[in-house]
């Protein structure tokens, strides 16, 4: 009994120290699984992991949870477990933040596009990430998201946009494998950014310490900062 108490005490203190260290330095430590994800019904932040086409929302498993835990660093809010949601589910309209990732090409149905149209016009936010710098997913994402609004097309988000300053001040993020800056892309609705996509394996960077995308895309430090900025932007704009 005493041993159990001792262990829980050590874990509790270690958690606090590590959280503080991560927040202050944003070190490259892979140990970021220190969040508060739970099934608490009072939790105010929850994320919908999108199931689409043949993708069951399991690419890079754990990435959704890691995103949730990352958000918990920026807030004292309680975090709920991720929800798997299809774009045709009624639950879509109870999930103000959607996350989608994958490796492959996909096509959205007309019903899914119609629902996304309403979802965005009602204030929903969509974050997408291509896995492992595979070009098929971002290409499909651009194509399909260009179909949502007739007058709005996916376009690069310049570095003077608020999303790069919503939590951390990010001047630029260098690509690890090419001599260029990482470029977030977004879809706007009535001047408001409603969907963001990064083609450079952002999810691999903030979740898997880039081990699946080694030497390519975004560094884990930059990936965590960029992802946190996207989440905070979604919560505040």
């Amino acid at each position, binding site marked *: 009994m005493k041993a159990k108490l001792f262990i829980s005490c050590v874990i509790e203190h270690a958690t606090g120290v590590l959280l503080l260290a991560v*927040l202050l330095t944003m070190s490259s430590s892979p140990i970021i699984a220190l969040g508060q994800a739970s099934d608490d019904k*009072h939790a*105010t932040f929850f994320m919908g992991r999108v199931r689409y086409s043949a993708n069951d929302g399991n690419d890079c498993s754990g990435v959704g949870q890691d995103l949730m835990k990352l958000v918990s660093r920026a*807030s004292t*809010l309680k975090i709920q477990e991720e929800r798997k949601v299809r774009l045709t589910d009624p639950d879509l*309209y109870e999930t103000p933040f959607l996350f989608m990732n994958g490796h492959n090409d996909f096509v959205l149905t007309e019903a899914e596009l119609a629902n996304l149209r309403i979802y965005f*016009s*009602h*204030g929903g936010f969509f974050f997408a990430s291509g896995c492992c710098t595979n070009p098929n997913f971002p290409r499909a994402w651009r194509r399909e998201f260009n179909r949502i609004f007739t007058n709005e097309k996916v376009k690069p988000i310049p570095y003077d946009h608020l999303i790069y300053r919503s939590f951390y001040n990010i001047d630029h993020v260098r690509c690890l494998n090419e001599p260029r800056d990482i470029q977030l892309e977004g879809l706007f609705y009535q001047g408001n950014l409603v969907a963001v996509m990064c083609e450079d394996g952002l999810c691999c960077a903030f979740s898997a310490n880039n081990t699946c995308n080694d030497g390519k895309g975004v560094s884990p430090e930059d990936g965590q900062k960029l992802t946190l900025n996207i989440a905070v932007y979604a*919560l505040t704009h």
Partner: protein
Amino acid sequence: MTAVITFEFPLGWLAAIPLAGALALSFWQHRKAGLQKSEIVRLILLRGTAFLLLAFLAARPVWITKEPRSSAARSIALLLDRSESMALEESDTSRFKRAVDFLRERLLPAFKSANLTIQAMLFDKNVEAADGAKLTSTEPKGERTNLGGAIAQAIGSSSQPPLAVIALTDGAANESADNTRALTALSEAGVPFIGVGFGSDQGVRTISLRTVDAPPAVPTKTAFSISAQLEIMNADDLPAFDLALFRDGQVIQKKSVAPGKGSHMWLESFQVTEEKQGEHNYTVQLFPPNLLNLKCVNALANTTVRIADEKELRVLYVQGALTWDYKFIGMALRNDPTIKLTGLTRTSKQAIFRQNVETAGELLNGFPNSIEELASFRVIVLSNLRPTDLTSAQQDVLARFCSELGGGILMIGGPATFDSSWQGSRLEQLLPVVFSAATGVQGLDRPFHLQLTDDALQHPVFQIADNRPARDVWSQLPTFTQYGRVDAAKPGAQTWAVHQTDDGPTGRRILMASQHYGAGLSAVLTIQNFWRWRMAKDSEPLQFDRFWRQLFRFLSEVGRQEVAIHLLDQELHPEMDVQVSLEKQPSPKNITDTSRKFFVRAEDSQKNVLHEETVELEQLHPVDFKFHAGKPGVYTVAVCDSLKVPVSTRAIEIRNLNMEFQDTARNMETLRQWASVSDGLAVKVEDCRDAADLVRAIMSKVETQRQNRQHRRPLGTNVVTFVLVVGCLGGEWLLRKRWGLV
């Protein structure tokens, strides 16, 4: 006149027993002393008389007189309503004609048979005596109904009060200034009021333009709504009619309105955008359809809007953690250039996140500890906070922000933060609800619907859709799942929304409420995830956005002006002295400002000065003045500071409202109340099948009143009794002295 003596304390007669004993003892002593019988009798008689009087007084005698049966000198006062509502036609005849026929053909013969005389009077807002010819020739077109005044006049017009006051009326009284006088007269004279109600309980078809609302100040090149509140009553199928918007007397928009069926109230809006700064008078005119028996209560209403690029309204949103509500409320305000949302969020125990601050140093150290730092904000939202997130000093600053600076405070919470932990805190004192002591309640996450109260449905904040009743719009909100339980609204608070099914100690659980606190306003929203409304698939985000903009404007406007201009009269109409009260509010710019000299001016719509004076104003000491409003129109009261800079203005619209058609249904309740306070009678005319029965019932009431009417006068407590007692005892003493007994 019959009279009787009663004793309020009959046991007082028991005092006679020891007194009789004392008399017997003195008789025995006198016999023993050898007095003659005649001498003893004289002494005992004198002393006994005095003792008897004392015992009589100890029993507290009262002289009660009752009035005699009705004498020929007293008549019955009959009041016939000649106000315009009596001209309304139902079943092809007007209420007035029906009342005259009832009087002439049934009531008068019945009174004649009972040998009772009638004193007839016609009344509207005035009263005048009328003979038979005048009764039949009168046209019912009085602008007001002052039933109280008529009753008082009927009782006080002659030296002898009438046996009863009978009113033939529809009961739709709309003047109450003389009600107290009438109540006193009825009570003192002991006269029963008999009300006979004419007309239908449903009323006739009416259409009315009730009010016109617009924001008091709008920036240039910004669209705003001018909303006209319309009402139709008892109209099954009205054709479309026109509504026109005038700006400074020129028509700028016109629309055709389909009113729908049944009795209801709804809003029609005009969208307006102004390019230049200035002040404009907007008038909405209703053109009612030309239909038989459709009465128009009011067709014209005005409002004034100041177009100025004034400083934006700042809202400070303080959060214990980032929440979705903040995002969605921010979205609601995004397209309104006059409202700026500033966020202050706790991200860890030691860290805060600021958004939309105006300077690098603003709110740098978290929530302010001084009131000066809050002075640039007009509304503060507290969301997802626990009491420990604010120190007592910070809570005190919040209370002062609301009570002294006239700011608005909105507290948003849910089951995790809205609980008994707030009990006894400084912040709880200013909120409109009492927190529930129970914690850990299960089931607060079950879906529920929000239900608006009648107060909220009439409130401008909740008018979120044009051309649709507020009740319909709000009933279509999605379900919510998280709410904090509060026990009750505080006295003086206004409940806006309640839970659909959850009952608390004083009724349905409150979800939204507000109350005045000092110069400001506080409100609560106990739903955690109100954002679900905007996200819901079938919702209209613009309605959500409009609600929040209107709520923040409402919360910010309360103490906004440096000098508050209040109207003391509830009802305004032409040819009246408008009573105005001025009260200095704390200045958010400089809370230590002590200047007290102000200039006040009242003008009519042609800028003619009606009143002008210099006043000394200080907080909590209002100063009253009045001006005469002769004609309908928009009057303006403006207050300037000592440098002649305007600090407050208020437009006051005086309308020629047709009060007689505002509520056309027969109001038996009014008649019942008058009857109830005078032990009288209120009957519908259709229930008076036999006038003789009615007269009998009236006379029965008169007799009951007579029986109950007694004059009580204490008996014996006067100089005569005193002299008699002293005389008897003094005479007895003199005799005893003469006979050598003392």
